[in-house]
């Protein structure tokens, strides 16, 4: 996704290469790298404490060593089931997130610009908003015909409320000077909406999207574990972890956890890249 977005611009390759070069010559980059290595080293030592000294290191000693996790990972990545878990989880995140964006942005904007709309829909929205998405799981399992649809619905809820509240806040916070300036230069209501309110709200839309994306991953994973997706639909990464746990393979549990970390990072990068693409004026800051 990142690549696709970048290629739409002039000379992205040059920018990327120089960025990498910059990173390699940057003290911060090496500091970060060393910090990660030290962390892994300590973790390794903690895990091997028992075999070296005969006593288990408290807590850390119970977690499989990074080397064992790495070994398990090399085995896991050869299995097709692991990759279908990725695809399944990504699909759910994507469907839920996109639905939340498609419905949430217009809904938030409508709440912001029309006081009657706000008067009718904001109070019920505010009552539903504090309900954590996971509290919806049993109800949606009953309500929706398939497991897959209930997971998608719960995922959608996770992102929807955050996106709406951000869009609403952003659109309401647009400085009145911009609206007056545009109106005195002859902007129609449509111009105001399309050329002032919408671009003025974009930063908040992307803030909402970034936060919403994080919540979406949390919710997907939890929903996958709860619904035990393996029976009907594909398992997803949540079920992969749960399954590994039930099967007693702690190494695989950690592989699954790190996979989710990577998946979440990729998703947020995609949101950031989209934000940069749609808001060129924000790239300066």
């Amino acid at each position, binding site marked *: 996704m990142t690549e696709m977005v970048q290629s739409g611009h002039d000379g992205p390759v040059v920018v990327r290469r120089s960025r990498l070069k910059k990173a390699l010559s940057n003290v911060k980059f090496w500091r970060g790298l060393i910090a990660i290595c030290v962390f892994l080293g300590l973790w390794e030592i903690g895990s091997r404490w028992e075999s070296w000294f005969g006593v288990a290191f408290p807590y850390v000693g119970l977690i499989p060593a990074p080397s064992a996790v790495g070994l398990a990972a090399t085995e896991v990545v050869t299995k097709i089931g692991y990759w279908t878990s990725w695809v399944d989880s990504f699909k759910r995140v994507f469907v839920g997130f996109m639905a939340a964006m498609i419905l949430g942005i217009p809904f938030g904007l409508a709440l912001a610009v029309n006081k009657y709309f706000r008067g009718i829909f904001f109070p019920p929205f505010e009552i539903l908003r504090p309900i954590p998405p996971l509290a919806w799981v049993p109800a949606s399992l009953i309500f929706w015909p398939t497991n897959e649809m209930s997971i998608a619905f719960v995922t959608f809820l996770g992102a929807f409320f955050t996106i709406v509240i951000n869009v609403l806040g952003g659109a309401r916070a647009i400085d009145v000077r911009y609206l*007056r300036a*545009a*109106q005195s230069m*002859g902007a129609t209501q449509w111009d105001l909406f399309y*050329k002032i309110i919408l671009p003025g709200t974009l930063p908040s839309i992307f803030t909402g999207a970034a936060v919403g994306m994080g919540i979406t991953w949390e919710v997907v994973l939890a929903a996958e574990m709860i619904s035990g997706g393996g029976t009907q639909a594909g398992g997803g990464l949540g079920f992969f972890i749960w399954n590994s746990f039930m099967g007693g393979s702690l190494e695989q549990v950690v592989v699954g956890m790190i996979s989710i970390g990577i998946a979440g990072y990729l998703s947020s990068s995609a949101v950031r890249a989209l934000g940069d693409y749609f808001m060129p*004026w924000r790239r300066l*800051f």
Partner: protein
Amino acid sequence: MQKEETARDAAGGRLSIRNVTKIYDPEGVNVMAVDDCSMDIAAGEVCMIVGPSGCGKTTLLNAIAGFHSITTGEIYLDDQLLCGPSKPQASMGADRIVVFQHGALFPWKTLLENVAYGPIVQGSMTKEQAHALGKVMLEEAGLSDVADKYPGEVSSGMARRVEIVRALINSPKVLLLDEPYRAMDALTKSIMHESLLEVYDRTKVTIFFITHDLEEAIFLGDRVYVMTTRPCKLKKVVDVNIPRPRDYKILSSEQFRLLVEEAKEAVHEEALKAFQAGERELA
């Protein structure tokens, strides 16, 4: 001089404020911001409005621009009624463009796109035409280097100059400036003044300029209108008979000094009243 004024009359821009009163009524507490204020501003005049903070100058500007209504009185632009008893709030229009104190360039548009905005939304030009004209106007103002930058990339002085170009592209009859240079340091301010005078000498647009800075008022203005403390009404008019084009040499002239003194006396009296009123309110 006489000949020039007739030429300006044809282009319009005469602003006539007749017995305007504005009472704000938030939650039943009447606050009179403007009280029976009248002034006649000739077409092509640079009219500087000076008065204590919070005296209601901006209220007057907002009424002309159509951002707020007036309670009684009338405001005419040339022979057209902007607002009056039958129509308390003027409609906003491109014949009166405001340049705001903190600037209102759209941050999501490049400076050129900002300048081209008016003609595009008015439908008077295509995007290409508006951009072409915008480029020419930015070049005239010596701003062509920054045309493709975003407002966030340039200094506030630069942004304010672009904003004036953005106003002028609409060929307004009146330019309404609400303390546009307030937050600037003295050096930037002097550059702003020069560029505004240059713009004025080129366009002869009517300028309604609110400020606190007396030297600024006399350096730029044809007339300085000293306003009373709230409720705002006209206290004194100082005619500035310094010939144009003006440059910084006049700042050290005796004539300039005398005019500043004359205005200062009137302003100081009002500022003191405003200050004392403020103290009473607090106590």
